[in-house]
């Protein structure tokens, strides 16, 4: 009964575009990070046009803090949690496994199957357990290469010609030579496995099989990804930099490319406004000439805390920000968050040339890869696997293993030890 009512309300909102008959009121707080937080803030105006009496506060705690504090809050029985929580997809299952009671079942608030069907399955699989939907998909992160047009031009490098990672290495050396003080790209080798995960995902591999039942990190595709990362590292075209340092390098003009999910568009645009017209986008290279050139990195969801005093208002906000084209396209336009709501992809904005990107229609380029992305399951053990891979990768890059296979085998054994899962044949 409640579900029908929720849908009726939604229909009413969509039909009239004004405040619904039983408007929500109160204050809700949202935890988020970086541009994701800013983009949620950018939807508040549109949301308040429909729900003028709900005051939304978005707190930017930083990515790691949101995760740590959400876990600590859930461990404390929900104490101190805000109404709405941002959760990264690949870490989401940790929460549902440990603290199923910490989050509200969105289906009880009006998240119908029809609304849910508006999102791709690979986004939903980690957020729903049986009949319970713990979170609503938000954005996704189709991976592309962001690059400095001027640096590439100085070196006579045409990004269209970069089809393989070997091409990328060759181009990287040329770029470094033609632009003193500039390095081809940066990766967070010291604290993250992002590059390995992007390349592995491109090759159709991940820490775990897609049903989460086996460890696949030492399968050939993952080994090839790890080996490729090392090849680039040894060639000196990638140097280490964490999230902050990458941005510092972007603004200082000491880096020529960044490989990231599409959401990095907004980060570059908002943190380096002076470099408008100098950046461009091209598809990520592959291991082989005609190999796959699409991957996904990141992508998040919003959940509602079970002890929220204002679940209805929180749901109204979540459903506006994530479940409407208006909300999703606002976040894309302002901060480059790539919608996972399928209907938003047909929005005319996607076709527009982007002035910051020298008139390139970047969204066509970025979203064009979305349907080729192979899903990669986080599982409740993502944190363990990622921590182990992080250490193994660091050791491997510093020549601590004879081969990529040996490194990947070691990681697989460690993950098996920690998780109790079998290693895939």
């Amino acid at each position, binding site marked *: 009964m409640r579900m029908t009512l929720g849908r009726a309300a939604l229909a009413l909102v969509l039909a009239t575009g004004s405040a619904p008959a039983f408007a929500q009121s109160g204050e809700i707080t949202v935890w988020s990070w970086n541009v994701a937080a800013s983009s949620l803030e950018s939807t508040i105006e549109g949301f308040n046009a429909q729900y003028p009496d709900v005051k939304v506060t978005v707190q930017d705690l930083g990515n790691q803090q949101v995760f740590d504090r959400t876990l600590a809050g859930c461990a404390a029985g929900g104490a101190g949690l805000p109404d709405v929580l941002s959760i990264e997809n690949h870490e989401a299952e940790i929460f549902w496994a440990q603290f199923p009671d910490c989050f509200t079942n969105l289906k009880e608030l009006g998240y119908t199957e029809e609304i849910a069907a508006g999102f791709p399955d690979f986004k939903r699989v980690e957020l729903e357990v049986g009949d319970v939907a713990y979170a609503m998909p938000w954005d996704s992160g189709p991976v592309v290469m962001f690059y400095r047009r001027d640096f590439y031009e100085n070196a006579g490098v045409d990004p269209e010609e970069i089809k393989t990672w070997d091409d990328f290495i060759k181009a990287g050396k040329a770029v470094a030579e033609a632009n003193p003080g500039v390095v081809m790209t940066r990766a967070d080798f010291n604290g993250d496995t992002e590059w390995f995960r992007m390349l592995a995902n491109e090759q159709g591999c991940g820490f775990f099989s897609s049903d989460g039942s086996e460890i696949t990190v030492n399968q050939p595709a993952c080994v090839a990804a790890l080996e490729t990362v090392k090849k680039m590292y040894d060639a000196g075209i990638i140097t*280490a930099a964490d999230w902050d340092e990458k941005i510092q390098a972007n603004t200082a003009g000491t880096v020529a490319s960044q490989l990231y999910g599409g959401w990095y568009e907004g980060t570059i645009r908002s943190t380096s406004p002076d470099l408008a017209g100098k950046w461009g986008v091209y598809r990520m290279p592959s291991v082989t000439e005609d190999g796959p050139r699409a991957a996904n990195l990141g992508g998040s969801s919003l959940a509602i805390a079970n002890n929220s005093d204002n679940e209805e208002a929180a749901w109204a906000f979540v459903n506006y920000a994530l479940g409407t084209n208006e909300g999703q396209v606002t976040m894309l336009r302002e901060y480059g968050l790539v919608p996972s709501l399928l209907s938003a992809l047909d929005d005319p904005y996607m076709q527009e040339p982007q002035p910051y990107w020298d008139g390139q229609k970047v969204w066509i380029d970025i979203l064009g890869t979305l349907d080729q992305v192979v899903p990669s399951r986080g599982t409740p053990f993502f944190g363990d696997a990622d921590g182990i891979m992080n250490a193994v990768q660091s050791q491997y890059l510093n020549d601590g293993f004879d081969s990529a296979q040996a490194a990947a085998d070691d990681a697989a054994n460690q993950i098996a030890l920690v998780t109790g899962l079998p290693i895939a044949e």
Partner: protein
Amino acid sequence: MRMRTRAAYGFLAPYLLIFATFWVWPIIYSFYLSFLATRIQPWSFNPAVTWGRLVVDPAFLNALRNTLIILVIQVPVMIALATLLAVLLNSQLLKARGIMRFAFFAPVVVGEAAYAAVFRLMFNADFGVINKIIGSIGLPPVAWFGNPTAAMALIMMAVTWRWVGYNAIIILSGLQAIPQDVYEAATLDRVSKPRQFFFITLPLLRPIILFCVVLSIIGTMQLFAEPFLITNRGGPGQATETLGLFLYRQGFTVLNFGYASAVAYTIAALAILISLANLWLGRSAK
């Protein structure tokens, strides 16, 4: 002294209450937890995933190794430096005593978060002032956060910077308790200053230095804030992950309370063992 058991426990009661509630009980509870699999609700008895995992977990052994490396390199260097500083700061010849003391003692009051932030900026690979200084004398920049050895060195430098003054204060107070006439007699007997240091000062300071060593060992066993904040959670990879940080990660990022409890017990046992071994070595050397 007359027995005054009731009065005594009256005074001890509030303190013992806090002790029982917030220390004794958690320690007992955590022993129980260390046998449980806590990854999936509901928790179940399964020591194989806690104690059983501990002895074969490479990540734990890595953290243990890192901690022991710090213990073996940083603690002796710091205590030697602290002893040297204490002797020098105690010298009658010292000018600008106030500023000198301030320089070495001030880091003691700087909080972990504050000094971690400064060290991160100073040692930033691209724009850090340390690499700029290194570069200005013609040496290549050091990847302080990227090279495992450099990152470890950075942690040790940071800890030494922060704690050497603390130990120097303790040793200095011990120095000042040594009666002057001992030295006067030695000087009359034409014993040189360096010999006085090695044959009078050091033996008399032995218990105090030993105390500093034990304090430093316990501190190192739970070293957390520096690798957490300065090298960004034990990076690169887990090259600077210490036992304290490993425990934090198990306890609060993957939320494996059972395993974390087993780790905690192991750390405590090691800390006590190493401290006792030191005390024993210190005594038997007499």
